[in-house]
Each structure stands twice: as C-alpha cells, then as structure tokens.
C-alpha cells in the first residue's frame, strides 16, 4: 500500500490519477483549496477502493505551510512515500504581459511552489531512503511560444529542477518523475475545439499512475508528444521566431 500526497487534488488529471491508486487500495491525502469538493472526491475514492482518503485545505502559494502539511500527512496516513504535485492554473498570457502582479503570481503557482514542495519532499524521502515524487510539468515547458510563455517558462523551471533533483536522489532510492501532458480535455479546456491530439483525463491518469509506479524519469502523455516536442525543439531559433504557434 502506497501512502500518497496529492497536491491540487481537485484538478481533473489529479483526480483521474487518484482513482487509479484508489483501485489499488492505496491511502491518499488530498490537498486543494475547496473543502467541499475535496470531501466529495474523498468519498468517491473510498467507494472506488482507497484504503483511506483524507483532505487538507491549502492554497499552494502558502509555501511556508508545506512542512506542516507534510507532517500532518505522515501522521494521518501513517507515513508518506509518494507524492503527485498537480496543482496549477491556465495562465492568461495577455494579462501576464501587462501586469507584473499577475505574472509573478502565475510563476509562483505553476513554477516556484512545485519546486519548493519538491525540495521539502526530497529531503524527507532522502532521509527515509525511499519514495517517489511526481510532478506535472507540461509540453509547454519544452519551448517558449508567444501564446503561453509565462506558463511555459514556469513549467520549464519545474522540468529543469526535477531533472537535477532526479540525479541527486538517484542513488538514494528516491524516484523523481517529470510528467508532461499534451492537450487534455479538462474543464480548463472545455470550450476548445478538440481534435485527434486530445486525450481524456481518464486515459492520462492511467499512464501517469503506471509511470509513477514504475518510477519512469520523464513521461509524455499521450506518448506521441515526445515525438512532436522533439521536432519542435529542433527548429532553429531564426526560423522559430517567425512562426505563429
């Protein structure tokens, strides 16, 4: 039985992944901002087979509260060995371009807070000699594009941070998993036109849970995004700057 912390547990991808762990009978700590939504998800996960489903209300920007969150999680679950960091927002790029406050806030929510939580988890898992830290980054972090480069650069920071952390912890029995979803049909993207590149949260959740259990270093989900992003990364900057993507 895994003892799993899920940060941003009301997000569609996190909830879908939590259902996979519930089927396996794991114990879960669900963290998010909305108490009644967390409670509804916890009840659902218990019916689906979770050994335990606890809730904890916290805004991810309250980073000083992370040590207390992890203490409380270990206490209530009887330990902690797995974490999925899944919170985030879909930044309004246009607003980020005109408001310093918005840009800083988006960077804090989508980048800094995930890194701070990773750092705190890393020290604890290193000390206990085992554990898995999974973080949802994004294909948007693989290359900056005009449509969402504030969000993208926050995710790029997460990708780079987890890459280094993975090396540091490799011989300490701790796995670090960087997850890069492509287009996922979540409430955040309900009004977008969907094509063949879109995946459902349920299918994405399955891939993420399996990747976490196997301790894979980097997961593109769906898998074909690895190929798409390889090509996008290869485009020379003097060409890329002219593209409208």
């Amino acid at each position: 039985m895994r003892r799993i912390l899920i940060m941003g547990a009301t997000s569609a991808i996190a909830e879908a992944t939590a259902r996979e762990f519930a089927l396996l009978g794991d114990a879960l700590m669900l963290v998010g901002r909305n108490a009644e939504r967390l409670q509804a998800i916890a009840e659902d996960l218990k019916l689906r087979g979770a050994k335990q489903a606890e809730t904890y209300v916290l805004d991810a920007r309250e980073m000083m509260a992370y040590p207390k969150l992890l203490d409380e999680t270990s206490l209530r679950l009887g330990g902690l060995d797995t974490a999925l960091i899944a919170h985030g927002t879909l930044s309004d790029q246009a607003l980020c371009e005109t408001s310093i406050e918005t840009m800083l806030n988006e960077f804090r929510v989508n980048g800094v807070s995930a890194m701070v939580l990773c750092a705190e988890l890393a020290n604890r898992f290193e000390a206990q000699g085992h554990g898995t830290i999974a973080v949802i980054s994004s294909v948007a972090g693989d290359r900056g594009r005009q449509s969402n480069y504030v969000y993208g650069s926050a995710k790029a920071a997460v990708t780079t941070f987890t890459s280094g952390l993975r090396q540091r912890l490799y011989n300490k029995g701790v796995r670090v998993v960087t997850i890069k979803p492509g287009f996922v049909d979540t409430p955040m993207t309900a009004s977008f036109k969907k094509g063949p590149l879109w995946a459902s949260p349920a299918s994405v959740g399955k891939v993420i849970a399996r990747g976490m259990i196997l301790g894979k270093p980097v997961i593109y989900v769906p898998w074909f995004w690895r190929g798409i992003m390889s090509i996008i990364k290869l485009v020379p900057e003097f060409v890329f700057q002219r593209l409208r993507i």
Partner: protein
Amino acid sequence: MNQPGTAWGRLPGAPQRLVALTDRFQALPDEPSLLTFGNGRSYGDVGRNDGGTLLIGRGLDRFIGFDPATGRLECEAGVLLSEIIDLVLPSGWFPPVTPGTRFVTVGGAIANDVHGKNHHRAGSFGNHILEFELLRSDGQILRCSRDQNPDWFAATVGGLGLTGLIRRATLQLKRVPGPWIRGDSQRFANLKAFFAITAASDGDYEYTVAWLDCSATGANLGRGIFIRGNHAPATEAPPSGRVLRMPITPPISLVNSLSLRAFNTLYYHRPAAQVNQALWHYRPFFYPLDGILEWNRMYGPSGFYQYQCVLPTEGAIDILSEMLGRIGRSGLGSFLLVLKTFGAVPSLGMLSFPRPGATLALDFPNRGAETLALLNTLDDLTRAAGGAVYPAKDARMSAASFQSYFPAWRGFSRYVDPKFSSSFWRRVTGDVA
C-alpha cells in the same frame, strides 16, 4: 475522440457554447439558453442546443454512496452505467435497466427514461430511481422522489433535460449472481412467429429481444433471430476487454444497399443464430456495439437517422409488415433492426416513451430528402396506429407528430425551466404544421 456536444447521429448543427460542469456544488452559468449534455448517446437533437449553451455534464462523475447490503447507489448524474457496473458487479449488483449501450450517463438515462431488454419485467429506468436532485436556473434545489415533489419527479423522468440540471441521483440496483447471462437464440420465419415466441418467453426470461432482417422481402419478410436470457451464476473468468475503435470518419458512408443485404443475409444464416444453450458475458449480450467505439462514424460525414417507434400490440403485425415492406423496397435501411415488446409496467414520466406494445428500432444513413420522405411515411403509419416515436432517437419528427404522440406535452411544458431548452424542444413545440 468525439467532439463534445456532438450527438450520436452526427447530423450537422449550429455552433453551441460549451461550459464544463466540474462538481455538484457549482452554480449554473448565467446564460440565456441552457441544456445539459451527458455522454452524447442520444441520436438526434434532444441533446443539442444550437446557438445556445451546453453544460458538459460528464464532469459530475463521482460516486456518493453505495450500500452493498441493499444495492442503493447514489452518484452524481454524469456517472456512466459502465462505471456503475465496474463498481457494483463484483459485489453482486447490476443496473436494474440498461439500454443497448453502457456508455450513457445516469442523468441522460433519467431524462430519456431509457428502457432495456427487460422492459416487460422491470419497466423503464425511471421506475428504479429512488430520488434525485434538480437544480433550477433560479438557484432553487428540488429533491424529487415519488413522495417528495412528485410532480417534478414525473416531469423530470423522461423530461429530456428540460426541467433543470439533474445533479445527483439515487437508484435501486438489482441483485445478480455474476456477469453471466444464460439463454438461447433461435431463428423465426415471420412476425407472427416473433409474437408467439415473445408470448412464450416473457414469463420465463428476464431479457428478450429480436433482430430482424430488414433486407428480406416477400416470403422472408419479418424473419429474424430471437434472443432471450437470464442472469446466471458465474462459471469462468470474464473475457478480455479488447475494444476496437472506428479511428476515422470515412469520406462516404460504408453502409449501402449491397453491404446491407450481405450483412443481413449472413447474420441470419450464421450458425450462431440458432443456439439452444448459450452462455454470454453481459457485455456482448447487452452491448454488442460497445465493442466498437464510435461505430457511428461508419455512416460517413453526413451522419444517420435512427427511427424507433412503439405500436400498440393490437394490429401491430399488419403495421410492422407494412413498415418492413416499405423499408425493404426503399433499400435505405440499415444493419440493425431491433424488435421487442414493451410490458405493462407504467412509465413514471409525463413524457416517457415506453408504453405497452411492440417497439421497432433501426438506423438510416442520411441520404437527404429520400430518407426523410421514408421516415415521414413511417410516422404516418405510427400515428394512425396510435403509437409514438422515441425522442432520444429522433432528429426529424414534425411538431404535429410529436404532439399527437405525447399529448401530455402541454402540461409538461409548465415544468420546463425558463432558461432550459433544446433544439428538439424548439422544433416540436413550434407551430403545428
């Protein structure tokens, strides 16, 4: 994946604004025209709101409570029957009524008061709903059951999603020994034989249904295969869940008169059509088409119509013969013509479709005016017989036809939420032609 907001028949329509529902605590968006969209298994426009807003309901997919001792299940209305089966079958429970696909939401099953192969025993889906919660656009929350707000219960069961948003529901599941169905299948030569087998089977078999060869004419008219079964104790491990998918929409319909005749003739004559002792897993028994996800794409970019009517038993043979004759001669019919009898259990909804008689369902590839003309002649026969056409399958019946099939519509309309509407509702309540 299918574009959210697309109906199963894939007929074209005007753009709709899509708003995702994420949880059962959310307020309704402030939009002038709303309709809830479940999992897109209604064929025509009961699930469309052209030019208006669609509430994408699949986000309401949480279980709220399940008691393995009593079989009471409470869930949010966007939960699929397939998800319910996965949760409850291991402890010996099953949906009390299931339509021919398990990929329907609970909310959609209530709003269309769906039926299954056990209608002659169990009635329709609404008969097994203990309670549900309805959110009105003015913010009012109504808990509805047969005792509490019974008029709202009757309006919402079969109410085509027009009375407000169904947010959560409690249903009474059915005890089963496992995932298996034991029964048999047999060929029959004509409609008279069909009714004879039905009469002989309804007492002993929970599930009965027949497939008809819609390409047969003359002496073969009305021939088909009768399938019946009961839940049976487990014997072996369930089959693997391999699922095929129609990956693309072919540029033209794959369904034409040649492929039709070949399929129907082969299907009728294949050895498996006559089996004395059959044991089915529940999936192929109830959901033969769920094995091919998005099979609706085979009809090509123009989409297709489905026609399902119910006819009073009295005189049904003559009318069915007339219908089959016209469909057979037109060459416009389809692979699957399903025939079944409805029993006497009264439906609870004001606009519920099931009523005692024989119900016929079949697909028609969209060939434009030719197809619509044939469907109109079928409507004439249905109306003359005092029958009805199923709104969940419909995309074209006239306002006059609807109003004669569902005379309670005017009383029902008092319960329609002022902000809720659908393309279907606007179509069938327009001026009487």
